[in-house]
């Protein structure tokens, strides 16, 4: 693992991604201390002001401070990314472990179902689910989590299938270890590498999906600041107040890019073929 870590840290792009995510997380956590403006406090004497020393990134159509909204929006975005991917990881991981470990008709059934879900375009399914569940933060997370689940199910099943005949698994079975114990204690730790890569890439996709759903008005509802809904509101004022669109847009872009960079770096670091 140390070799992998060293390889990852020597990858400048991956490192840049890691720094960006850390800064973002820091900004999200420290948001109330980094700005004295509330993200929801309207100010009708200062509507749509251009960026200045008073309002670092300007104000929006209700006079709210955009810097503050972008910072607090990071909370929504990161929470959305982490929680929806956790849902997918737990659900998909469980499905994959069970399918790969037991095989047979159960595997067949679960994988058919996974195939069917993977046939849907990610975003179209997320939109449909979010629409049926109704717009709220919680439902957005559930929708994105469900749509991300089959990817993890496939991945974990493949890994479990490859590990199943290995001696250490067979030994654990022979020693009479309970199935659950074998799955979680023996199998899972041995397939974490590819899982971490997928977690990182899926987080990028989840952050993007949350922003997209919120942009369409199907995700996080106002007045909670979310980058996607900020961009949606900004569309009508593009000619006079472009900063309203540019900063939340940049925030989404950089957050997604950062998680993708980390995922890429991890994949290269874990891939024995790319040894330098």
């Amino acid at each position, binding site marked *: 693992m140390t070799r992998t870590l060293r390889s990852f840290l020597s990858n400048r*792009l991956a490192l840049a991604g890691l720094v960006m995510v850390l800064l973002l997380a820091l900004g999200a956590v420290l948001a109330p201390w980094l700005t004295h403006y509330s993200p929801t406090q309207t100010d009708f004497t200062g509507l749509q002001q251009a960026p200045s020393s008073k309002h670092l990134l300007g104000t929006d159509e209700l006079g709210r401070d955009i810097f503050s909204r972008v910072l607090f929006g990071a909370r929504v975005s990161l929470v959305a990314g982490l929680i929806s991917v956790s849902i997918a990881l737990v659900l998909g991981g469980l499905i994959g472990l069970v399918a790969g470990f037991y095989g047979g008709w159960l595997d067949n059934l679960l994988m*058919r*179902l996974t*195939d*069917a*879900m993977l*046939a*849907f*375009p*990610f*975003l*179209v*399914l997320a*939109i*449909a*689910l979010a*629409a*049926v*569940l*109704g717009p709220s933060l919680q439902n957005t997370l559930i929708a994105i989590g469900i749509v991300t689940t089959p990817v993890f199910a496939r991945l974990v099943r493949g890994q479990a299938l490859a590990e199943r005949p290995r001696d250490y698994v067979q030994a654990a079975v022979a020693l009479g270890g309970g199935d659950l114990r074998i799955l979680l204690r023996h199998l899972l730790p041995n397939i974490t590498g590819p899982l971490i890569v997928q977690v990182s890439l899926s987080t*990028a996709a989840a952050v*993007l999906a949350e*922003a*997209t759903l919120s*942009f*369409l*008005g*199907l995700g996080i509802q106002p007045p909670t600041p979310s980058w*996607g809904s900020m*961009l949606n509101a*900004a*569309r009508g004022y*593009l*000619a006079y107040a*472009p900063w309203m*669109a*540019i900063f939340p*847009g*940049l925030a*989404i*872009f950089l957050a*997604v*890019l950062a998680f*993708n*960079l980390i995922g*890429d770096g991890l994949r290269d670091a874990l891939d024995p073929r790319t040894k330098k």
Partner: protein
Amino acid sequence: MILFVLRRLVGGLPTLLLVTLLVFALTRVLPGDPATLLLGEEANPQLAAKLREQLGLNRPILVQYGAWLGGLVQGDLGRSIRDNEKVSPIIWQKLPTSLELAFFALAIALLLGVPAGVVAALRRGSATDAGVTVLALSGISIPNFFLGILLVYLFSIRLDWIPPSGYVEPWVDLRKNLLLMLLPAFTLGTALAGAIARFTRNSLLEVLSQDYVRTARAKGLGERIVVWRHALRNAAIPVVTVIGLQLGGLLGGAVITEQVFSIPGFGRLVVDSVFNRDFPVLQAVVLISAISVFLVNVLVDLLYAAIDPRIRYG
């Protein structure tokens, strides 16, 4: 060949059947009753009951599924709740617009992605290579709607070169149609361009280290012929695969792109059906997108044979 296509299609039937089941479950099994969803929470209960009756919602769930499936097989996707129009003609009418958009997006993605990937592979480890890597990943990471808005700001508002949104049928005014397609196609194509560039680079690097490339060089062929004729052709398979895999992404991207540029296509129908609470239409568009992804993947398999003569389907 035909046999192969048939076998692939039949082999996919169980999955497709599950797809229809999932689409059906999406609106029926999940919490929430379509009648309430349609009429809102505070609806008159009698009205809701009548609507439920009208939609056949009080029949057993399996009977409902059977009836819906029976309609599907005959190409009947039901009727829109909003205006009681048949869903299939609506979709047929919107599909060409989205296909045009997708076609241009794919063209832009190939024109940008393949050369970028080739250049990066040939100059592996150089600043150009790093630049292509960052650009490609940026293309994948930038939200469609943000890129679309940026392009509108730059080319429509600032420079005033291109109208910000709208659509004109190509047979009405071809020039205007192409002009209006430019920004949306670029918006939609960038993610695919990024993916294509990455796969072209990696795949070409793998191929370039193989014996027959060395042979081709050894017998004195020009570098250009070696790369473009010998290596790229063999590097193309993973690239074609990635295009097939990205089709779902292209469809999802079209939903957003059509929304941003007010293009009345299939993707717009997805969003409209959601906001109109028009569940028969939503079911239909979700189902059709899944089926298109499936069909394109069969097509991709056939393309392999065209690229690589060693692959034959009996």
